[in-house]
């Protein structure tokens, strides 16, 4: 048979495409549940890590709920599921909040870096102003450059920074050449300017969306949550 005849080529490519498509579809379906479980687990770990509660049981330490753009709690949404598509969650003003039993809250942030999406979790102290911890992650920033934002060394710089100057929301900025304002700035990444700018914009816009909630929480702290300090106590014990 002539291997370069049109008929042969059409049949050959059709068979090849069907075989390859079947193979990939079967693999994707068979592995989907395992992959989703990995991703869900990673998100829970990241929330705990931002609170420095790594290794604790998520369900015992965290109470999750959803607020709208006015900072009011709304029902009917699963906070964890919203994390899978944060840009849509922000666009629709369904904002997930993760409250630790010691009164600190974790809010997710979502933005874009140089190559693709970035996201993270910002843990705030009970004053809803001081950053207690932060976890940043990205889909594909350059290792050694932009991807440095995902390292503990970079994230440690955010601890203790404050979001507000008086009543004004100023967020936290990554400054090239080193932080100048001790309260609101951290060092940017050398060779990762676009990623650093992306983190700055992400913090500003995402935390900005939570402003009404943060202000409301300072005015009326959630007392039922503050009463239980089980997780915090556990953590102290672990440190000893």
């Amino acid at each position, binding site marked *: 048979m002539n291997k370069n005849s049109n008929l042969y080529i059409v049949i050959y490519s059709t068979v090849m495409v069907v075989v390859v498509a079947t193979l990939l579809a079967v693999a994707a379906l068979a592995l989907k549940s395992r992959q989703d479980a990995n991703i869900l687990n990673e998100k829970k770990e990241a929330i705990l890590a931002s609170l420095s509660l790594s290794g604790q049981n998520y369900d015992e330490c965290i109470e999750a709920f959803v607020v709208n753009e006015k900072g009011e709690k709304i029902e009917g949404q699963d906070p964890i599921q919203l994390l899978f598509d944060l840009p849509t969650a922000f666009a629709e003003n369904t904002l997930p909040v993760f409250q630790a039993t010691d009164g600190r809250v974790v809010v997710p942030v979502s933005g874009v870096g140089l190559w693709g999406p970035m996201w993270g979790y910002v843990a705030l102290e009970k004053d809803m102003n001081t950053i207690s911890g932060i976890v940043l992650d990205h889909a594909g920033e350059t290792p*050694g450059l932009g991807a440095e934002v995902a390292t503990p060394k970079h994230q440690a710089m955010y601890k203790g920074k404050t979001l507000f100057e008086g009543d004004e929301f100023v967020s936290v900025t990554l400054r090239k050449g080193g932080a100048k304002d001790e309260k609101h700035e951290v060092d940017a990444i050398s060779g990762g300017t676009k990623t650093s700018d992306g983190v700055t914009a992400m913090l500003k816009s995402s935390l900005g969306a939570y402003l009404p909630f943060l202000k409301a929480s300072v005015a009326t702290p959630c007392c039922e949550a503050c009463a239980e300090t089980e997780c915090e106590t556990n953590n102290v014990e672990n440190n000893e």
Partner: protein
Amino acid sequence: MSNKNLKYLTGPFSANNPVIVQILGICSALAVTVQLKPAIVMALSVTVVTAFANLVMSLLRNGLPSRIRIIVQLVVIAALVILVDQVLKAFVYDVSKQLSVYVGLIITNCIVMGRVEAFALGNGPWASFLDGIGNGLGYGLILVIIGFFRELFGAGTLYGIRVIPESWYIAEGGFYANNGLMLFPPMALILCGCIIWVHRSKNKDLQEK
């Protein structure tokens, strides 16, 4: 293993190295060598994909219409890369996060297609498989050498572990500073050029007249 097969495996380490002799895969050698860890992970992934792409294409070579062979190669390579990615995501999620964008880059790595086109289409499956492994490892060797120098002088660490003490740095009152140029791709090209220079001065038969 016969001498001939052994040569397929070890030739690409030096005399027929894909990066510094065949000048294939330079692009990814510049991109992933800022640190050793991604360089090693990338080298291993490319080795797996090159070996299996060579194997599959060598098995298909007799029925393959030559007019669409490039497309067929692309489909086979892309399918292999997606499979590898899916398996990594399901079973070793940490590694797959480490690889991130580079999984996709494997598809465009010219070594994979270059070896399929130059070797697998004209040789048997076993020889092709060995050729793929040899070229993947030869590529990895160069990546590791470049990554070693870039991470050591660019960040003061090796495989993420601090080698140059923090106290040496100017910020800590010392005398030392990292070389920022090491973090950028042009330095990888310069290092690659240096390796080619050293390699050719040792292998006189590779020098162009």
